[in-house]
């Protein structure tokens, strides 16, 4: 037989623990009440006995032994709510008055049982509490009082302590079970939703648990996490589709070229055909490489091994490397590079980013355009810019050019996979820098702003 799910559930254990705590609390509370009530009752009874004893001693001291005996006999006969019992022995141990058994002839406080005199000696015995003290002539006077009420009170209190303890525990247990069952039911709904998500329904979201703001916050947080995962998955799916799409074109061209070579229909000499094929493969590999780099960068995020990167030196070096090629492409290279500017970063990745920006500027501007490299401090931060006075990018296209594989229609004819700016954007984000595309009036101005430069 299977243990019912409720009994092994966390809710049940919680209910049990709760019941235990309540029971302990109830027992402790009633215990304290019982203790103080009975202590009070005992004290009150003792006071009564002492007062009666004092009265009798007084009687003896003012009026003598005979008067005392008479008073004891009178008091013993009186029908009184708070009935006292007496015993008076002379110094030699002979009974002078009173009905208490001889065994009661002791000084100080003590308790014992006597046959209830009200029921003619045949009745049940009743507990009494007695106080005995010697008088000035050596006689022993014992005054006792029925304490059966006190006993009853105590046992009554004890019984109710146990009863209420059990009752409260049961209530706590039941309450815990009810709350636990409700909670389980809500969790079942949440688990059901998670199971559906695991089965691939990524747009499913968790219901509110609804037992308090903390639980709602938990499901809200989990939902945010799911949103993020779904976004990443969609991004990944989009990228895979894009890759498949963008690689199909060069792969198709490569295949056609190889088929032409096989059939011998290409008029170009074979070495040239092979060169072309290799160039196409290199282009495909270049796309792969850039994608891998973006992926790796986004995966390692902030854990990149960042060191001090000398941006000034890097830009100078890039400028020198590119100057002849830019000149040969009939472009003009200008540089305004402030010396000694460093940031925390990966110099190779940053170099790659700036290289991509320069390449973009070279390939997407007409002859005679100016390409300008700028590096300057900007408040606490650093501003790096690559600007040109070419056609620029329309405002509505600026956000989209950061997407992988996005290409402005007018640039479809120029080679490239459209990964350049996406890569730059990834590198910028890795360095906590912001990439902005602005109007250079005319032309495009791409800025990388690094938040804070170390001294």
């Amino acid at each position, binding site marked *: 037989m299977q243990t019912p799910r409720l009994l092994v559930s966390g809710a049940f254990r919680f209910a049990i623990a709760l019941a235990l705590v309540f029971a302990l609390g109830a027992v402790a509370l009633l215990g304290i009440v019982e203790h103080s009530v009975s202590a009070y009752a005992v004290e009150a009874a003792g006071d009564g006995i002492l007062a009666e004893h004092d009265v009798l001693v007084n009687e003896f001291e003012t009026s003598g032994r005979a008067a005392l005996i008479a008073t004891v006999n009178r008091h013993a006969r009186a029908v009184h709510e708070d009935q006292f019992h007496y015993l008076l022995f002379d110094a030699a141990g002979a009974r002078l008055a009173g009905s208490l058994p001889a065994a009661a002839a002791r000084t100080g406080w003590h308790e014992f049982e006597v046959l209830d005199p009200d029921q003619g000696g045949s009745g049940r015995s009743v507990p009494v509490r007695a106080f005995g003290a010697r008088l000035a002539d050596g006689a022993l006077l014992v005054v006792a009082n029925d304490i059966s009420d006190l006993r009853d009170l105590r046992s009554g209190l004890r019984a109710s302590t146990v009863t209420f303890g059990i009752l409260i525990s049961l209530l706590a247990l039941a309450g815990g079970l009810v709350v636990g069952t409700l909670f389980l039911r809500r969790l079942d709904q949440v688990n059901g939703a998670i199971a559906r998500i695991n089965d691939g329904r990524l747009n499913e979201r968790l219901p509110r648990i609804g037992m308090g703001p903390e639980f709602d916050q938990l499901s809200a947080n989990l939902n945010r996490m799911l949103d993020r995962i779904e976004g990443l998955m969609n991004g990944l799916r989009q990228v895979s589709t894009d890759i498949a799409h963008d690689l199909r074109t060069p792969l198709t061209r490569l295949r056609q070229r190889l088929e032409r070579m096989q059939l011998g229909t290409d008029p170009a000499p074979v070495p040239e055909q092979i060169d072309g094929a290799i160039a196409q493969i290199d282009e495909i590999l270049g796309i792969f490489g850039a994608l891998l780099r973006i992926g790796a960068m986004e995966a390692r995020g902030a854990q990149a091994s960042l060191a001090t990167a000398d941006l000034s030196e890097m830009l100078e070096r890039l400028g020198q490397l*590119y100057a002849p090629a830019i000149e040969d492409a009939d472009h003009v290279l200008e540089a305004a590079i402030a010396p000694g500017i460093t940031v925390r970063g990966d110099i190779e990745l940053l*170099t790659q980013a700036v290289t991509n920006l320069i*390449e973009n500027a070279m390939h997407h501007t007409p002859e005679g355009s100016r390409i300008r490299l700028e590096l300057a401090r900007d408040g606490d931060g650093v501003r790096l810019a690559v600007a040109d006075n070419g056609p620029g990018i329309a405002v509505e296209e600026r956000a989209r050019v950061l997407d992988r594989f996005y290409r402005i229609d007018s640039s479809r004819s120029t080679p490239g996979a459209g990964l350049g700016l996406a890569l730059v954007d990834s590198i910028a984000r890795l360095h906590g820098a912001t990439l902005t595309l602005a109007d250079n009036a005319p032309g495009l101005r791409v800025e990388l702003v690094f938040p804070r430069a170390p001294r």
Partner: protein
Amino acid sequence: MKLLLLEDDLETRTHIVRLLQAEGHVVDMARTGPDAIFLGTTGSYAVLILDRMVPGVDGLGVVRSLRAAGIQTPALFLTALGEVDDRVAGLQAGADDYLVKPFAASELLARIEALARRAPVAEVATVLRAADLEVDLLKRQVTRAGKRIELQQQEYKLLEYLLRHEGKIVTRSMLLESVWSFHFDPGSNLIESHMSRLRAKVDKGFDRELIHTVRGAGYRLDADA
């Protein structure tokens, strides 16, 4: 030259061996890291060509073991792991060069030549010569047929690198790495532009060209061609 090749993929191994043999090299093959360590410590090779991911001990481990055993044979990593960190790890382990797969055959051959040349002794020459071209490394002065040639800093570095590898092919990426310290190929004709400026100063107006373009591979400075 006698070379050691560590590569576990049969097709790649066959391809590289044919390539190297066609150049007149003698190639010993190892398929696992321990084999390569054994051959590397017992044989005498001009250059070690090591794949990074192989069974047994990986390429990094092979280089570390050989270096620890005091074997300083130049080592070239040949690997699909092309990220910056991978390259740094390779060089730190004691390799001398790093070539990412897929690679061009000419690139591999040129780098092997460059490594083998560099092996024996550190260059102590203060003047490099090729035919009537002379570069004074101390004064940083270039003359050809007794005539001073003024070169910009990068042109000078380019020429020095070509001269140090005289008669050998140097590839674009070798130049990018050694002259500009860039470890990736931006794609544009950067090196071509620099080279045409260097040629305009070094070769133009003289009876013989020293700097030659090797189609599909790179450049070669050759006094005898």
